[in-house]
């Protein structure tokens, strides 16, 4: 069996604090292969975003990392800034929750999309622009030429998130980290963006680390899921196994508190029967 593209072993992230140091992530291990979607679910403060930031080495300065993160066979934990520049974007792409803050407001879309292509792929500006246009087309953006000349504020949230995805995938990274990619979007747009991620996974063969708090999103898109709480992974397995027969009490309570339309409607009926009886 070939080794997974991303291999995390006993990763801990600690922040120095008065008294005992605070463990934001506490010895977590997981693998992510190409062409696979692994969902990290948990509530705020569970450490899921910290996990993604440590893979990209974007943690705040005070954080201390231990354990190993292997990307394409290289352990990046001790990497220096220069070395990380060859990993970010090229091997691991990332999209964030709020596409307005992750795009640079004073640069055109063309400029932002070609930057990475020139840096990592050594393309000329002109070739990079042609590739950017194709990528925008791939993510279903109508009239890519017009969009390329625009600034982020001229575009809707869904469009901006699509551009982020296009820019990340233009570099053909082995894995894409999607940190709450649809949380800031409307449901109908969310559905389109999830379709897009799923479609791109199938076509480009990138692995996706999907960070979310929405169990519904996990059920529809992920292959495997890891449930996080308090910096630990409590339970991990295939989506079917974890969602249908959860083993950990916390997973059970997370599933139980997840509101769905069906569940709400059922609740209404039982409520009405109780008051009627």
């Amino acid at each position, binding site marked *: 069996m070939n080794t997974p593209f991303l291999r995390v072993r006993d990763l801990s992230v600690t922040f120095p604090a008065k008294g005992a140091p605070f463990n934001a992530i506490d010895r977590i291990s997981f693998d992510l292969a190409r062409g696979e979607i692994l969902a990290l679910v948990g*509530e*705020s403060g569970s450490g899921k975003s910290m996990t993604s930031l440590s893979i990209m080495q974007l943690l705040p300065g005070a954080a201390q990392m231990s354990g190993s993160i292997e990307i394409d066979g290289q352990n990046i934990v001790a990497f220096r800034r220069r070395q990380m520049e060859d990993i970010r974007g090229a091997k691991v792409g990332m999209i964030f929750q709020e596409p307005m803050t992750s795009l640079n407001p004073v640069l055109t879309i063309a400029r932002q999309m070609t930057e990475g292509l020139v840096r990592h792929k050594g393309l000329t500006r002109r070739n990079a622009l042609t590739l950017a246009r194709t990528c925008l087309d791939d993510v*279903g953006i109508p009239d890519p030429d017009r969009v390329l000349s625009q600034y982020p504020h001229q575009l809707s*949230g869904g469009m901006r998130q699509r551009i982020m995805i296009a820019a990340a995938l233009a570099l053909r990274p082995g894995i894409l980290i999607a940190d709450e990619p649809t949380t800031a979007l*409307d*449901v*109908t*747009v*969310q*559905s*389109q963006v*999830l*379709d897009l991620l*799923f*479609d791109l*996974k*199938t*076509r480009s063969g990138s692995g996706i680390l999907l960070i979310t*708090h*929405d*169990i*519904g*999103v996990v*059920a*529809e*898109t992920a292959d495997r899921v890891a449930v996080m709480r308090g910096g630990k992974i409590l339970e991990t397995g295939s989506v079917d196994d974890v*969602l249908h027969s959860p083993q950990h009490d916390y997973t059970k*309570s*997370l599933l139980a*508190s*997840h*509101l*769905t*339309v*069906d*569940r*709400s*409607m059922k*609740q*209404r009926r039982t409520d009405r029967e109780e008051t009627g009886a």
Partner: protein
Amino acid sequence: MTVKTLLNVEGLRKSFTANRRTVHALNGISLTLREGETLGIIGESGSGKSTLGRIAVGLDTPTSGELHIEGCRIDTLSAPMRREKLRQCQMIFQDPYSSLNPRLKVGRQIGEGLFASGESDWRAINSKVRDLLARCGLEKDFAERYPHEFSGGQRQRIAIARALAPNPRIVVADEPVSALDVTIQAQILDLLAELKKVENLSYIFISHDMAVVARLCDRVAVMHRGRIVECGPVEAVIENAQHPYTRNLLEAVPRFGRRRTGQRPTPVTLPQHEDGDNFVTVSEGHTVLQASASTCRGTGQ
């Protein structure tokens, strides 16, 4: 049996001017809130649902149209009279991190509502505040602390206590659980449901989340581009959705037992509604906006 109408808007319009362009946030909204009910307003960003909520509590004024509270027309009253009437309507905002004043003690900001409604003895106000905190599931001593000392769920409870302070009859809740974790969401929804019973309240509950609306509301109005496109009892609208937009919205909610295939769904063309469009009654209390024949361009049947 007739149920009393508490709040009623008629042909409400609101336009904003930005960069010399006029944006129509509300295009003629007519809606009633009955006593003791929870009316859900659902729609996506930009549909005008928050503008509607802000007008209902007097934070915005409509460009045209009428706002009635308990049968009394509000928008034509003088400012002091209007303020007096609007004290019956209080609001809970989405983000409890920004809706509370970080520099005021919790007790002070809850008490301000009581002070504004004519109570001038701060000792009496403080004892009421402590009582309100307890009713919202918090400790009475929290009054002496500042908002940053609390978690998101606790802050939202504080915001609820503040809304209840002037003893309102109508509470407009604008996405009150969207910023909270799922386990906390359920607790806040339960609190709202319980307070409604105990305090004899009526809610206008603004949300983008069908599951939350289905859990809490009696009736729901679906908004799209400044218009109500469908309105009716929650069961009828969710289980027998008529408008293509409502169906889109329901279809888009992620759910168990369905997998993405990577295929893009065929896009549905939504009807372009005009001012002259009429509501068609589907069943009792369930109405849907019907585009006139000339503007109906393939509704994706």
